[in-house]
């Protein structure tokens, strides 16, 4: 704790850190026709079956040849290595027919045997592939290759949105996985320098062609610089050493907009949500009267109505967010319930609702029917500036209805310990990142028996009638073979969640990006990877 000669030491340390920050970062020279952008950290693995972090996912997406590709713009599946595919009427058998003349990046022929082997590999427990969970019962899935161009996948039960799972399975050479060095996708891993860069080269045997018959991908390669510091990413982009930046913060978006207005894009609401919820778990150590507040629907609705979402959008996201009232974003065109009746921000309605629920004002403080002052804390994770600002704004919004709110920031492990184990918290403000448009991916949040059912985890039986109804509707959408029935079930869940407000949705942060004017072919979408989902079509207008 002793800090002799403090101030000069402090200044010197700051100076040294600044010099190091600006001078040490080295960027490798770009090759002709090569695209370049940055990733935050070293990929944990180049094995496409074991990907579970965003940077490994980037490399996998760019290198993996897949049977089907999910078009991020149209939100529809398109054939890739598969010429066609067919789902049986019972939804349990998928038959892929491969294109003829397919080759891996080393020139070896790609057959149905390779595809079957790659699918079987991710299903094996030993592979530990996160994508296996999407098959629900991976151990009971059977994969056959009856001939050199046909792959048949038999599922023990119907799985909603199963086609999209094949967008995540890289087809590799059978029995010789190469960690991205031999691929059937647009690029392969050519060079990796730890903490510096990953260099991908064009797969000369990639069989895709564009509408005019030109071979894809158009770029000669991709250089992924490993840059942790967001400011360094901005600097590289401004210097023309990086062609794009995804997931820009609103502050950096505004800064770049002033410097180079043509390079930034606000793509509208993302699939992600920021929300606040109250702890309703019976196992929590909260006093009984607080549990009663948090289980009271009128209380939750009043809190939702008192929150000025427009201010959150304007002050925290500088206008680059959209007020949220549902767990499905309007960006999710197929699943968003456009007829949702949501209780919008309305202070008078909030006060009225609280009064009807038995709360009363005493001076500037709100008291419950038993005279307990309404006072609670909102927990959020330390280091997230946007969440801290939102919590501080909400603190003042709720003061207007007499609620005294403490804002508490904790480091993430301490936060998770409280949320998942001790359940010693009152309210929490966090976000949820949705990478998939299909609501089936959110089963783990909405089923009352799930440990991720945050407001009341792992219920033995649904605690309320509306939670039982959510269970029923979510199970219906997961098992129904009719899209209309699924849509109706998900619409109903959205309405229940909006009425009951177990999660009080705040905003959908917008997707903000920067794209160099030199980059041609970009068709940004709101679904990850937003900017380079069509990497085959990307090219530089002028080779340096």
């Amino acid at each position, binding site marked *: 704790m002793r800090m002799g000669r403090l101030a000069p030491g402090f200044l010197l340390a700051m100076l040294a850190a600044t010099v190091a920050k600006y001078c040490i970062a080295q960027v490798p020279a770009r090759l002709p026709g090569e695209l370049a952008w940055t990733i935050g950290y070293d990929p944990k693995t180049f094995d496409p079956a074991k990907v579970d972090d965003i940077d490994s996912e980037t490399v996998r997406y760019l290198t993996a040849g897949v049977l089907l590709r999910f078009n991020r713009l149209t939100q529809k599946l398109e054939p890739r290595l598969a010429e066609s595919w067919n789902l049986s009427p019972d939804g349990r058998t998928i038959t892929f027919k491969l294109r003829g003349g397919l080759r891996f990046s080393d020139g070896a022929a790609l057959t149905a045997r390779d595809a079957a082997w790659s699918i079987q590999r991710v299903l094996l427990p030993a592979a530990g592939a996160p994508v296996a969970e999407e098959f629900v019962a991976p151990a009971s899935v059977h994969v056959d290759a009856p001939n050199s161009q046909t792959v048949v996948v038999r599922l023990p039960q119907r799985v909603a949105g199963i086609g999209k799972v094949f967008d995540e399975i890289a087809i590799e050479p059978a029995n010789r996985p190469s960690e991205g060095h031999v691929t059937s996708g647009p690029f392969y891993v050519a060079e990796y320098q730890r903490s510096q860069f990953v260099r991908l080269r064009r797969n000369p045997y990639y069989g895709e062609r564009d509408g005019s018959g030109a071979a894809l991908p158009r770029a000669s390669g991709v250089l992924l610089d490993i840059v942790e510091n967001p400011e360094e990413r901005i600097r590289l982009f401004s210097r023309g050493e990086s062609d794009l930046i995804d997931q820009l913060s609103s502050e950096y978006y505004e800064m770049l907009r002033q410097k180079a207005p043509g390079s930034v894009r606000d793509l509208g609401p993302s699939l992600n949500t920021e929300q606040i919820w109250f702890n309703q778990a019976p196992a929590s150590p909260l006093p009984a009267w607080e549990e009663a507040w948090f289980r009271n629907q009128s209380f939750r609705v009043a809190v939702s109505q008192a929150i000025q979402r427009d*201010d959150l959008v304007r002050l925290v996201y500088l206008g680059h967010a959209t007020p949220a009232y549902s767990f499905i974003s309007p960006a999710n065109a197929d699943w968003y319930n456009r007829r949702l009746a949501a209780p919008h921000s309305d202070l008078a309605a909030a006060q009225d609702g609280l009064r009807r629920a038995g709360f009363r004002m005493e001076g500037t403080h709100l008291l419950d029917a038993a005279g307990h002052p309404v006072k609670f804390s909102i927990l959020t994770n330390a280091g997230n500036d946007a969440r801290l600002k939102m919590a501080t704004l909400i603190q003042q919004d709720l003061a207007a209805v007499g609620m005294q709110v403490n804002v508490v920031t904790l480091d993430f492990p301490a936060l998770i310990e409280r949320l998942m184990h001790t359940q010693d918290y009152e309210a929490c403000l966090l976000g949820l990142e949705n990478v998939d448009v299909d609501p089936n991916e959110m089963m783990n949040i909405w089923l009352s028996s799930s440990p991720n059912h945050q407001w009341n985890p792992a219920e033995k039986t649904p605690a309320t009638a509306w939670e039982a109804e959510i269970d029923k509707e979510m199970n219906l959408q997961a098992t129904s073979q009719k899209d209309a029935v699924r849509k109706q079930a998900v619409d109903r869940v959205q309405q229940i969640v909006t009425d009951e407000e177990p999660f009080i949705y705040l905003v959908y942060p917008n997707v903000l990006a920067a794209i160099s004017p030199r980059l041609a072919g970009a068709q940004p979408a709101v679904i990850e990877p937003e900017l380079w989902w069509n990497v085959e079509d990307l090219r530089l207008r002028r080779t340096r």
Partner: protein
Amino acid sequence: MRIRLLPVWLLVALALGASAIVSRPGASYARQDREHPLAGASLTHPAGADALGRDRLVRVSAALLLSLAGALAASALTTAAAAGIGAWAAFAVPGVAWLMMLVCDVFLALPWLFLLMMVRSALPLRASPAHSAVITFLVLAALGWPACARAVYRGALGLKRADWMMQARASGMRGKQLIRQVLPNLLPLLLPQFLVCVPAFVIAEANLGALGLGIGEPLPSWGGMLLELDNSALLFRTQWVYFPVVLLILVLLLLEAILVEA
């Protein structure tokens, strides 16, 4: 003499100025002027407003007062604890003294920032912002005494072996009588220890705040305001975000100057 006291007077003047700003009618460190986020300097907001429209001058002034008052109190506590423990160890039997210094060394070897984070995360969530400030400085004081205690121990040990002390003990002085003689003689050692701890606690609180783990909103803290500097996009929008760090460095320089003069 006056020149030597100049840093003290400057620091007092800063604190008085900050008190005047904070206690000005209508001044509030929490009020959000949501229509004017990141406003530039004006008559209403002489140092502009932060991203939530809160007056930066009032917030910086309140943070200065809070930080100085908290650091002074924590330093007084930690110095008093160190004086008691160090003097006790010096006059205790050798085995007890060894054990006490071992405890000091163990405390010194602890990664104090992580310890602070652990202690902070275990605190009750319902603590009000004012309580969180008190708790933060109490935790700093509780973790800050070992280095000081070691120094006091060495000083008290020297006193114990001094000729006049030998003579006093030989004359039959014991217990409280001895302590009454020892403590005034430790003051030249305790004062620098106290002055060293003050800037250390100011920095420690700012570090915790910069990690988002210090004093709760809406109370302002230096660390919380320094967080703005982490975002170069914000620097691009207003130069007033440098104001807290400039004032922090000024306060640290003054505390350093006072320490040197002492």
